[in-house]
């Protein structure tokens, strides 16, 4: 009995000693970021997490939040679900008032589960899976992303209304959920606008497929070109498919969701043209129309010596921005109060774009997105397109 007591006492002391250096001080409030800086998710988590750091800098430069300094604690989760869960638990124990989760549902869900269980707000940067926004995990979980299906509806709306395209060929990469949702949204909106017969062909491929020759042949067998095609995919499969379609002389406009962002893959298709995709903001090499977003890119470049390679990085800034706005309006860090304020967001002008949450929906389905056109490998922003207006909008 005595040894047991001693044992637990020692454990307790060890726990205090281990935990105390990182516990929040009275004059500061902690935000936890269990995201990946190594492993394959690092490519998707690094710039949102850095963007969140800049948001924290901005808040502290203005005197902090409710009189407290904000501190972001990042733990590298190494693209590993077990590490992610462990890191989130450690951050919650340290007293984090908000947990930023990964730019992908499968990678971020372990952290969101921990946060929900501890009644801490969890916000994903660019995880566009509906499961982040529809209470699958619980009502403390939000995402700054635009829902994948809504993204597909937006690009369809733009193509049909602004370009007047009537017929479309839909090619879905069946490997990733995001892409299936994207094409589903595209199909439903395109048919609403142009009729059921306007989809001339639906086909699929897998991201790792070396050859899309039979998809090309099936399309060519139609005998006449569609007005446009959408390839719902991400690199490397996206780049490989476009290289092969263009090589086969298929020159029709190609549409894409946020998976087409960044110019890193453009070298696979020399002279890439007639390609359109949409995004939250400009990516490196594209001129950003919004002054506040442009100021963010300058701050990012100053701090990290480069611009975020992907236009999705900006969502990380808004993870902190959205939560901080809600905290200020609630006048409290209390989870229920902060959640209540976030659920009142209606076209809230955040850096990630106009943001609307409701008690039922913690993701965005009607957000204007930046449409970018690529001609001769040169990306040019066309403007923020709002599906509700059927036109480009400015709100800044």
């Amino acid at each position, binding site marked *: 009995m005595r040894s047991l007591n001693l044992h637990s006492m020692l454990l307790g002391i060890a726990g205090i000693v281990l935990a105390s250096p990182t516990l929040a001080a009275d004059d500061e409030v902690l935000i936890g970021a269990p995201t990946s800086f190594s492993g394959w998710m690092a*490519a998707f988590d690094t710039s949102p997490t850095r963007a969140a750091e800049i948001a924290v800098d901005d808040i502290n430069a203005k005197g902090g939040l409710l009189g407290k300094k904000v501190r972001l604690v990042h733990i590298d989760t190494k693209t590993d679900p077990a590490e992610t869960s462990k890191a989130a638990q450690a951050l919650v124990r340290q007293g984090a008032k908000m947990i930023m989760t990964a730019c992908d549902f499968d990678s971020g869900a372990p952290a969101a589960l921990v946060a929900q269980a501890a009644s801490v707000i969890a916000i994903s940067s660019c995880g566009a899976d509906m499961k982040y926004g529809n209470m699958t995990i619980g009502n403390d979980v939000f995402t700054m992303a635009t829902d994948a299906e809504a993204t597909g509806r937006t690009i369809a709306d733009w193509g049909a209304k602004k370009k007047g395209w009537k017929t479309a060929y839909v090619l879905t990469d069946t490997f990733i959920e995001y892409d299936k949702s994207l094409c589903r949204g595209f199909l439903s909106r395109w048919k609403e606008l142009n009729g059921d017969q306007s989809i001339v062909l639906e086909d699929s491929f897998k991201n790792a497929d*070396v050859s899309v*020759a039979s998809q090309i*042949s099936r399309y060519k067998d139609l005998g006449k070109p569609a007005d446009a095609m959408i390839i719902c995919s991400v690199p*490397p499969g996206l780049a*490989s498919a476009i290289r092969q379609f263009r*090589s086969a002389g298929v020159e029709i406009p190609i549409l894409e969701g946020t998976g087409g962002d960044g110019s*890193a893959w453009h*070298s*696979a298709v020399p002279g890439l043209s007639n390609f359109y995709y949409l995004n939250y903001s400009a990516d490196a090499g594209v001129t950003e129309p919004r002054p506040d977003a442009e100021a963010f890119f300058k701050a990012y470049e100053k701090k990290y010596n480069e611009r975020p390679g992907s236009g999705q990085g900006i969502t990380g800034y808004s993870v902190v921005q959205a939560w901080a706005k809600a905290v200020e309006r609630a006048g409290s860090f209390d989870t229920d109060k902060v959640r209540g304020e976030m659920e009142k967001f209606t076209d809230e002008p955040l850096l990630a774009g106009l943001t609307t949450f409701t008690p039922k929906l913690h993701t965005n389905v009607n957000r204007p997105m930046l449409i970018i056109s690529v001609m001769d490998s040169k990306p040019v922003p066309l403007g923020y397109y709002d599906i509700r207006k059927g036109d480009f909008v400015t709100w800044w």
Partner: protein
Amino acid sequence: MNIVQLLVDAASLGSQYALVALGIGLVFGVMRMINFAHGDLIMIGAYALVVPTAADLAAPLIGAWPFPLLIAGILCVVTLVALATERFAFRALRKRGADGSTLLISSFAVSYLIQSLVLFIHTGRPKSVSIFGALTQQVTIHGVRVGLVDIVTIIVTILLLLGLSLYLRRSRAGIEIRAAAEDFTMARMLGVRADRAIALAFGLSGILAAAVSLLYVAKTGVLDFRMGVPLAIAGFVGTVIGGMGSLPGAVLGGFSLGAASMLLQALLPAELRPARDAFVYGLVIVVLLFRPQGLFVTGNAGERI
């Protein structure tokens, strides 16, 4: 649907898989070992085309060299890595009499090591590079579209198969490789420098992997640290259904696997197409039930390569 076009499309994947299977078949024939890292040798060859950096934008390195130097450069890099894996990961195990399954585990370790290194250096974001731009063109013959890169892949595969078979049968070094493959101890007793023979076989498999690197990137333009894994699996399955231990068998097996995959992609109804691989590998099981020795093994199947 044009039947000839269908077959040409099938060949576009079949030819890539055939070349992968040839490299895996060679090492299997010599060492009775499935070199799972063969796919990662292909990946290394592809990444050697660009500057090693964590930056998103990949600037070409060897990929910017003139055509003959580019080929020579990639052949050198991949061959050296193949030789290094033999020297440091497999030789010691072989000397201790490790069996094929131990060597297989070791090849998994090599595979993960190479992938982790590339992930560390290049990050997980896929990169891209365009080489042999002229090969991306398509020619139309009697209404049938054929990609130049596919024609070149088929020619290269046939030439490498013939060259390798001749080398193994006619040259002294080739005969030594076959002797070491047949009975390692006996070969040594008869004066064959067996370590050298086996290293040579790995070097040859490196050349075959480098050929895939170049043709794969010419076709797709993309680099991904995981790109080797599906290729290694396809090459391995190709060797098995072709008949283990036969080089022409491996090539035909790889070709059949790729062609079957493309034919199913073309012929399956739209709802079933996402399940294509289930059909492909279901077919593989059926083939093995009826021809466990492989599809293309003939009378002299006693020989290992």
